[in-house]
Structure formats: C-alpha cells, structure tokens
C-alpha cells in the first residue's frame, strides 16, 4: 500500500533538455540544477517551451496559491497559441527554470503574470506562423492555427511541434505582437473547469504537506515562550525515552528536534524540557491603541493632496471627525506551514509553498551564507496562505535542521506554531476629519493613517532571527498606503500616513493589506458624512464620483440589490435588518467593486449576522468567470469572518490565540448568501480579482448596522460586546 513512487521526468522541450518534476507523486529526489534553460522574463523561452510532440510547457513565476490561477494561465496560453488546454503543462515557481515574476500577491497573477504569458505566446505564435509560411511557401496572412496545427490551405497541415527547434523561441518578447481579438476567443472568458479539482477531491493531489524525499527525517521546532525570550537551557534526557529521535538542534535561540518518525518528532518537541528567559516586552493588549499612538513615528507619507485641506477644514461651518481601528489578524491557513530541505554537496534544494520562491532563495542564501546559485527553491502548492504566512519561515526551519543533521528534513509547523508565529496583519488606526458646508457640500477631507513603516519587502525569517543569522528581513507590512487616497471629488484633500518604527508582532501582508483597513475607514466615514447631510449612501457616492465606469458599476449594484426599493428597518425591533453599501476602485487604478451587505442585528445580544451580500465587480476582461466568482465568494466570506470575529490576542510575552477555539473563524451556519453581477469587458485589459472585494466588506457591514440601529461601528472586529456598548451609548 505504501508506494515508493519515484518518478523523474525528462522532457525534451524546445530543443533544450529540461529537468522537471511531475508533481502528483509525493516522492521525489533532489535534482541537479538544469542550468540550460533561460529564466529571463524578457524572452519567450523564459516562459514557454514547445516540444516536438506539440506539448507546451509554461514556466510561471506566479504560482497557484489555491486560487485556480494555474487554470486561468493555461487558458491564456492555449488561447493565444490555439492549442488544446490538455497540451499545456504549467511549471510553477522553480528558481532554476521559471522567471522571477515577483511575489504572487496583490491580485497581480493575471494582470501582470498572465499578460507576460499572453505576450510571450503571441510572440511565439507569430514566429511559428512565419516559419510555417516559409515552409509551406504561402503568405503568412493565409495561415491559421487550429488545435495546435497550422493550416496552410489545400489540406497542408503543419503541427506546431514540427515548426520549432531549440532556437525558435529564443526571442525577445514583443508586447506589440498581434494578440487574438476577444471576439475569436474559444477559451478565455469561459468557465473552464479547474485542472486541479479532480485530484484534490480524490486525494491524488500532492500538497506541500504531502511531499516526501527518500531518507527524509521529520523536524519540529520548539519556539520560545515569549517573542523575545532567549534560550537558557534544555535537557535532552527529558526525551531520551522517545525512540527515533535523531537530534536536538540548537543554534542560539533556535531550537528544534529531528526524528525518524513524525509522531516521535511531535512528542519530542512537546516533551523537551526547556528553560527560556522571562520576557514581557509586548504591550498591554487592553491599551493597544495607546501603545500604537505612543510608538515613535519614523516618517510621514502623504498619500494624496488636493487643494488646501487644513484651511478648508478650519473654515467649514460643519465638522465631522472619527477614529477607526482594525485589529491584528492572523492568516489562519488551514494547513500549518511546511517545507522540505535537502543539501547535496553544500547546495540546498528547498521545496516550499512560498508565494515568492525567488525572494526566498535570496533569504535562505543569506541565512546560510552560501551563494544564491547554490540554493534552489521549488514551489509545491500548500494550503491557502492569503499573503505572507509561515511558509517561508518553515523553509528556513527545514534548512537549518537539514544542515544540522546532514539529511533531508521536513519541517511541519504545529497549529500553535502557525497561530503563534506566522507574521500578522498589524494593528491599524485611522483618524478621519471632514469639513462640510452649511448646505451639505463636502469641502475638506483629511485622514491620518497610523501604520508600521515599510512596504511589501522581505520579511525576516523567524528561524534565522532566533539563530542569530541575517535573512535580509526588514519591517514589511505590505503596500499599506494603497487606497488611503479617496476616489471621490472633494476640493481639498490630504491623506497622510504616519509610519511607525515598530509594531508589537512581526507584521506582513494579509489579503488586501492596507486597502482593507483604509477602505473600511474611508467608506464608513463617507457614510457618516452622508448621514450628517441626510443623503442616501448610494446617491452621495454617485454625486462625488466622476468615473463613468465606477458610476455604471454602482447603478448595476443598485439594480442587483434593489437598493432604492429596500425596506426601511424597524429600529425598535429586537432583531432588525439593515443594508449598507460600499465602493472601491482598487488602488484607484484598477478593479472596481461595489457591495451591498444585508445584516441582521440582535439588539439584545449584540450579535451580528451577515445574511446576504450583493456584489458588482468589474476587473476588465474576465479570463475565467467561475474562477472569478469563486474568488469573490472567498473574499466576502473570509472578510466577514475577519470583520465579525477575528482578533489575535496576546499577553505580555506571547500570542495567546493559539488554536481555533481562541481564534474562531466563520463557520457554515454563519455564511451569507452571495449574489454577484460580473461586468465583463473583453476589450479591456484584465485586472485582478483575488482580493479587491475584501476591501469593501467591513464598511458595508458597518453601514448596514448603522441603517438598522443608528449606531456606527468603528472598531474591527464588530464583536457583540462592542455592538452592545455602542447601542447603550446612544
């Protein structure tokens, strides 16, 4: 029953011998570096290889994080080359063979990665047709490709595999190469079924957590009792009764155990007697916002400035101000982070679910003080990560353990490692002010975001930090200034970010970083203005938007949700339902989303139930409408969970929400109904759909609660205790 399948696929690709892994196997061997394939993102053969039998291999630096994007990328390539989808294989995130297309994040996999593949495919197609024209002695304009075969008239058929050799695709990608007209699309825009689902529902799929190497040992880390605690001592004899333990590995404050069997590794990590120093450097959580306000500011960033907001605010006869806060969140991947590391002659191969294999290579090389060329990172899909979770840290742990024992090691985090030590979405504060004319016109808008310094850079690897090794990390909360600027035409606007020197727990990006918190404050506060001037939330948005595409989206949302016909809530009832509306133009340059939330408020208990969401979504050209719907649904459900329930808790030493009981998420009985209007614009460029919808969820819920009760919620999560307190204060 226990199969030791060990397959190594050698494929003749575009004339170059490429070593690759066929991944539904669960077993693989460390491979020598191939070294013969270009990974240039400027070249067609960086991304594509066409074998003599016509099979296409796509080399994608963007990876499928469980979003279905591998299917969408395959659609794009198959479409441009006019080959069947079944002929296309995607190799993802292998530093040896895939171009560095940056981190798979920010809803850029299709918008950027997919377009690189489209241009590479279009350039390849033009070259294939040119060669076919020469061979068939026909004018290139008379040729077409069907199902991977060039049709050259009079029955002459030239399979594309017969038209390529080792140099055919050694071309610079031409972004002006002719691409297919959307009217001719056979695959793009269609709800093609995801390629991975049959294997995932029948257990044939190999997740990172399933990946094995021959001779592989099992590693577990033993993390400190406090974030900054140091290791005083450990007693190896405390686990001498556990069989199969190979080694206790200590490097400064990095501690781990390696065993031959997984259960022995788990027991050894749990039972190892360790003394850590007492460390109580975290702030008092009950005073978290005072702590944030007293943290040194290293810089102010002006996100947007229009007119002169200070004087306009000062002169305004009516003034509004409010403060919004957003709690610390964890990624909460259902599968704790995992990686496998193997050294061969001083060279590291690391199998990882990292969303940034190329960055991870740099970091591991720095940590180990070896050349980047001596590190190969290979992506294997893990459980969904929703940003920079613990996968990279598990990779560092695996590398440190593997080096210490001289054998391949699988480092698998336990649940408490994941909840306790994955990087967190930082605590975020926003102070908002508006100046309003007597008759209701908004004359000034000012916001001050208080958020850690940094962008979407390299996040320090925890294992490296504990071991006292450099992993090139710095404060990197993600691109958190995005969507601080507003989409509305207000004559005087200043939006400022105060960048903090530190934040209590190591931060990183979690789905829609900054955009989520900023849009929560912006849209909620815009609703506060609407309420102040007696305007309907939809009407005031239409009034202050100049963007025709945004206005069209809002009108379609109004029709979908029957916004203008919605019932008036009975604010005296114990159970009262309200509706809230929110809008975002993502980063002010791409995907438009509008939502209406229907929320039931229990005035006795303070419990909120999100009953229904209506979504209007315009991300330009849609590649796969069902895949897009799946992502939008996920954005709604996950963000309802974050808005209503989630908050990382900690004492002065360490995170205390270390499991699903102490960090509850939304469950089946609490899931809202979701109705979606997808606005497809085949003639436009495709934008991202993996996260923009998240951004509008908290403010839409808050707007619904306001409509239902007259109470404005300004602190996420909207717990029953906060709702009751707000109701009482009225």
């Amino acid at each position, binding site marked *: 029953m226990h199969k030791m399948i060990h397959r190594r696929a050698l494929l003749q690709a575009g004339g170059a011998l490429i070593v690759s892994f066929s991944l539904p196997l669960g077993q693989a061997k460390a491979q020598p570096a191939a070294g013969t394939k270009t990974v240039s993102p400027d070249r067609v053969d960086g991304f594509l290889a066409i074998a003599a039998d016509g099979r296409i291999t796509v080399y994608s630096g963007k990876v499928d994080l*469980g979003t279905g994007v591998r299917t969408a990328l395959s659609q794009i390539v198959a479409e441009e080359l006019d080959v069947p989808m079944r002929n296309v294989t995607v190799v993802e995130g292998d530093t040896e063979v895939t171009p560095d297309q940056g981190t798979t994040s920010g809803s850029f996999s299709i918008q950027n990665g997919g377009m690189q593949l489209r241009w590479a495919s279009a350039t390849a197609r033009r070259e294939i047709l040119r060669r076919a024209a020469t061979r068939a002695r026909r004018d290139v304009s008379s040729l077409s490709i069907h199902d991977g075969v060039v049709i050259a008239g009079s029955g002459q058929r030239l399979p594309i595999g017969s038209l390529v050799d080792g140099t055919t695709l050694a071309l610079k990608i031409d972004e002006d190469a002719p691409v297919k007209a959307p009217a001719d699309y056979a695959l793009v825009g269609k709800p093609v079924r995801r390629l991975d689902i049959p294997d*995932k529902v029948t*257990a044939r799929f190999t997740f990172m957590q399933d990946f094995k190497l021959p001779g592989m040992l099992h590693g577990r880390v033993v993390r400190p009792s406090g974030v900054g605690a140091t290791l005083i001592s450990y007693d190896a004899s405390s686990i001498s009764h556990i069989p199969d333990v190979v080694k206790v590995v200590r490097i400064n404050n990095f501690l781990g155990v390696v065993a031959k069997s997984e259960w022995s590794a788990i027991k050894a990590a749990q039972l190892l007697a360790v003394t850590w120093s007492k460390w109580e450097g975290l702030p008092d959580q009950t005073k978290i916002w005072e702590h944030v306000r007293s943290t040194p500011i290293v810089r102010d960033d002006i996100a947007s400035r229009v007119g002169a907001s200070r004087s306009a605010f000062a002169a305004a006869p009516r003034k509004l101000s409010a403060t919004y806060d957003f709690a610390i969140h964890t990624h909460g991947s259902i599968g704790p982070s995992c990686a496998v590391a193997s050294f061969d002659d001083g060279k590291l191969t690391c199998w990882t679910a990292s969303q940034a294999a190329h960055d991870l290579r740099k970091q591991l090389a720095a940590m180990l003080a070896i050349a980047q060329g001596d590190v190969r990172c290979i992506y294997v899909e893990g459980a969904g990560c929703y940003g920079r979770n613990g996968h990279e840290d598990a990779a560092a742990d695996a590398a440190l353990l593997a080096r210490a024992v001289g054998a391949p090691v699988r480092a698998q985090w336990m649940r408490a490692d994941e909840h306790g030590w994955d990087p967190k979405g930082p605590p975020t504060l926003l102070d908002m002010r508006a100046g309003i004319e007597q008759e209701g016109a908004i004359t000034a808008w000012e916001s001050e975001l208080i958020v850690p310094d940094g962008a979407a850079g390299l996040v320090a690897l925890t294992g490296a930090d504990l071991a006292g090794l450099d992993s090139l990390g710095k404060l990197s909360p993600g691109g958190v200034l995005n969507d601080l600027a507003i989409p509305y035409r207000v004559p005087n606007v200043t939006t400022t970010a105060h960048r903090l020197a530190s934040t209590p727990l190591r931060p990183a990006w979690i789905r829609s970083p900054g955009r989520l918190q900023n849009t929560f404050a912006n849209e909620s506060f815009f609703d506060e203005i609407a309420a102040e001037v007696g305007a309907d939330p939809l009407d005031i948005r239409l009034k202050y938007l100049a963007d025709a595409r945004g206005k069209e989206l809002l009108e379609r949302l109004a029709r979908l949700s029957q916004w203008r016909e919605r019932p008036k809530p009975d604010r005296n009832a114990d159970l009262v339902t309200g509706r809230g509306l929110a809008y975002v133009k993502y980063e002010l340059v791409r995907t438009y989303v509008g939502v209406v939330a229907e929320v039931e408020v229990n005035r006795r208990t303070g419990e909120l139930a999100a009953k229904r969401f209506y979504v209007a979504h315009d991300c330009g050209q849609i590649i796969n409408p069902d895949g897009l719907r799946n992502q939008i*649904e*996920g954005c709604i459900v996950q963000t309802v969970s974050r808005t209503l329930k989630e908050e990382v808790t900690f004492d002065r030493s360490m995170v205390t929400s270390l499991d699903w009981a102490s960090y509850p998420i939304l*469950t089946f009985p609490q899931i809202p109904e979701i109705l979606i209007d997808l606005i497809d614009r085949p003639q436009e460029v495709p934008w991202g759909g993996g996260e923009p919808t998240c951004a509008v969820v908290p403010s839409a819920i808050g707007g619904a609660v306001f409509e239902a009760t007259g109470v404005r919620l300004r602190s996420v999560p909207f717990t029953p205790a906060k709702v009751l307190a707000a109701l009482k204060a009225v």
Partner: protein
Amino acid sequence: MAATSLNVNGRTVSVTVDDPDTPLLYVLRNEFGLHGPRFGCGLGQCGACTVHVDGAAVRSCVTPLSAVTGRIVTLEGLGTDANPHPVQQAFIDEQAVQCGYCINGMIMQSAALLARNPKPSEQDVKTELANNLCRCGTHLRIVRAVMRAAGA
C-alpha cells in the same frame, strides 16, 4: 511493540508502531501513504483529518491507533477518479474547491451525513459541517455540492 491489524479501504493491513497512542492520522499518512486525511490542527478542531470508522466521521488526528477497531475508509477509499463517490463528483461539478486543503474533511463528513440521512435539508448540511473549517470561503459551493450529491 506489537503489530496492529487494521482494515483500511477494504483491505486488511498490519502496522507496527512503538506507541499505541500514535494518532491514526500519522499511521494512515506515513505508514500507508494515504494523503486524503490531512494535518490541520492536531486538536480535533478543524476537520481536515476526517476519516470514516465504520461509516462514522472521525477526527483521525485525535484518535489513538489503539482505540481503532472498526473499518477505516479514507478519501482514497471513498471513490476514485474513474469511479468517484457521488459527493466527490458533486464537488467537481460545483467546482467546490479553492485551495482544497479542507476538502477531504468536507467530503468525508458529508458522505457520512448522506449515508445516514440521504435527503438532508440545507440547514442539516450546514449543521453537519459546523465543525469543519474552511479558510478560503468555499462554504456556499460546498453546501451546493452536498445538496447536489443528495439529488436535491
């Protein structure tokens, strides 16, 4: 150390472990190479490790090997690519997967429900799955898939 005999996916197999408290999950994954049941929490909180023991949905991460006496079925034994269980087919038809890490538990829990209640209401399905966690937010599709498998 004694050999333990188990019935897994219709076959009698034997396994020797030094610790009878070894959770069934690790035996299935590491001794028998079965990847349907997954490690999610090790605490019986999320459901990713779910298997059937005598037809009932059981959390294999908190079930000691020594406590297992019945017939074990994992996702691999429920159905195959060529001959999927109706719940597996329904998950494909509804495209009820995002990352798919929790899906083993969703399918095994739902199949156990349908075996004892072939015509559940949507509320029955949600109640049955209340202790199965999904972080991607695929819940609506999962409920639709189970209802489809029930012929609703």
